[in-house]
């Protein structure tokens, strides 16, 4: 017979202060500081942030099956590895500056932080948020696990972060400089991530694999509710979308628009400028690469010819070789030249290397070229 003991039932309550909430607060802060002042990052990015928030809500409300794939040791350790790699990339990401690539750096930073938030949500689900749970929400075994994870995390944090900061500060002027800009950029987010989430990472890494006997009873229940399926779909979408859009920068056909028109303004009077028999045209080309994660490159020049040679009236100086707009990509100008050959043919070349901040190994070479001969025949455009 079973006795009727006065047992104190512990109900798992959701803790008020969790890594998830901290990272969400960071995200909101980042949105406020990054998107609003710079603007122009595209409506899709705002939509993506809402997708992240919807994913967070769906994951929190989904019925997680202990022992399901998210709690598997290999998945947990994979999440820890991804978070660690993301932190390293964040440390190497400088703060947005007031240069022409502001949108690129700020957007890349934002994507990384959003990615980190999603990983944190997944990590919280995988560890059942034991690392941030108060005593009243865990049993004694979980409490021991949590305390052990915090002790190890404290040592790891002190050695990794404190040690790195001390060494960088005393090593050289360069490392001291790196320390400065890193903490104004992604390094700050990596620091906060490790400060708040490292115990959960340690817990996820150390907790042993579930025994089949531990999960058998649970697995007999319906494996996935509709809410869980929705949450997993949103999670996949949220994590895959930035990578997909980054890859599109390299594979999506570029969209090009060109215009040739009569000069809209007076010709410049400069030495060697065309005579009265000169004909002039204004060339405008714009090439968009990628979608969402994208760059807009433009060529704008006025060319004149008189039957002997074609010359430029303006355009394609070094100062003209910069992107018209970038969203979450880095554009590096590799060539910006203006030449006239012996036959009097004028060639403008603007060549760039475009890569996403999230997948810098996918690079696309984009070339805009205008070639006009001495009779005004457009040989290439763009």
């Amino acid at each position, binding site marked *: 017979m*079973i006795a009727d003991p006065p047992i104190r039932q512990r109900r798992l309550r959701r803790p008020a202060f969790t890594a998830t909430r901290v990272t969400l607060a960071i995200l909101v802060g980042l949105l406020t500081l990054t998107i609003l002042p710079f603007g122009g990052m595209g409506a899709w990015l705002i939509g993506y942030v809402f997708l992240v928030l919807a994913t967070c809500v769906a994951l929190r409300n989904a019925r997680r099956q*202990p022992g399901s794939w998210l709690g598997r040791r290999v998945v947990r350790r994979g999440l820890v590895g991804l978070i660690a790699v993301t932190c390293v990339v964040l440390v190497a990401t400088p703060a947005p500056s007031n240069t022409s690539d502001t949108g690129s750096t700020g957007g890349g930073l934002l994507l990384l932080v959003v990615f980190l938030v999603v990983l944190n949500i997944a990590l919280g689900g995988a560890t059942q948020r034991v690392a941030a749970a108060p005593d009243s929400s865990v049993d004694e075994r979980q409490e*021991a696990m949590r305390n052990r994870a915090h002790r190890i995390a404290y040592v790891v944090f002190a050695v990794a972060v404190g040690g790195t900061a001390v060494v960088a500060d005393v090593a050289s002027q360069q490392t001291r400089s790196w320390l400065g800009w890193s903490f104004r950029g992604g390094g700050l987010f990596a620091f906060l991530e490790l400060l708040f989430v490292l115990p959960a990472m340690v817990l996820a890494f150390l907790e042993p694999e579930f025994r089949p006997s531990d999960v058998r009873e649970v697995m007999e229940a319906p494996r996935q509710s509709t809410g869980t399926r929705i949450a997993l779909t949103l999670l996949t979408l949220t994590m895959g979308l930035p990578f997909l859009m980054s890859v599109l920068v390299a594979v999506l056909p570029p969209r090009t628009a060109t215009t040739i028109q009569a000069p809209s303004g007076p010709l410049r009077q400069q030495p060697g400028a065309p005579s009265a028999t000169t004909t002039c045209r204004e060339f405008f080309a714009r090439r968009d690469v990628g979608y969402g994660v994208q760059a807009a490159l433009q060529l704008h020049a006025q060319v004149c010819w008189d039957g002997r040679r074609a010359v430029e009236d303006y355009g394609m100086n070094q100062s003209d070789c910069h992107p018209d707009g970038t969203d979450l990509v880095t554009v590096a100008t590799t060539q910006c030249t203006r030449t006239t050959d012996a036959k009097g043919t004028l060639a403008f070349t603007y060549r760039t290397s475009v890569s996403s901040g999230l997948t810098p190994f996918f690079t696309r070479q984009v070339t805009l070229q205008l070639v006009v001969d001495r009779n005004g025949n457009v040989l290439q455009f763009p």
Partner: protein
Amino acid sequence: MSRQDGRGTTPPTGSERFYNRIAVLRTERGLSRQALADAVGVNYQTVGYLERGDYNPSLELAFRLSELFGVPVEAIFSRQPMRPMSEELYSRTASAGGG
């Protein structure tokens, strides 16, 4: 009974190891692990750790289990490997009858 040195869930070894009859008692009473976990206020996985001897419970949890099963603590936990309950019961009956 749990180790309070904070090493948490590292499986007890050697002299730290306790043996128990939780699985037998639970099965006899027709309880699932989830039901037992709910009854003593722990996570269901902790029941698995307890049954395998991978985790030594606190004195409080040991007494909760004792009260739930209605048997003394020493009937659930032992520092020596447990003999089958039937064997133990018959040996007691035999010694009582013989005495």
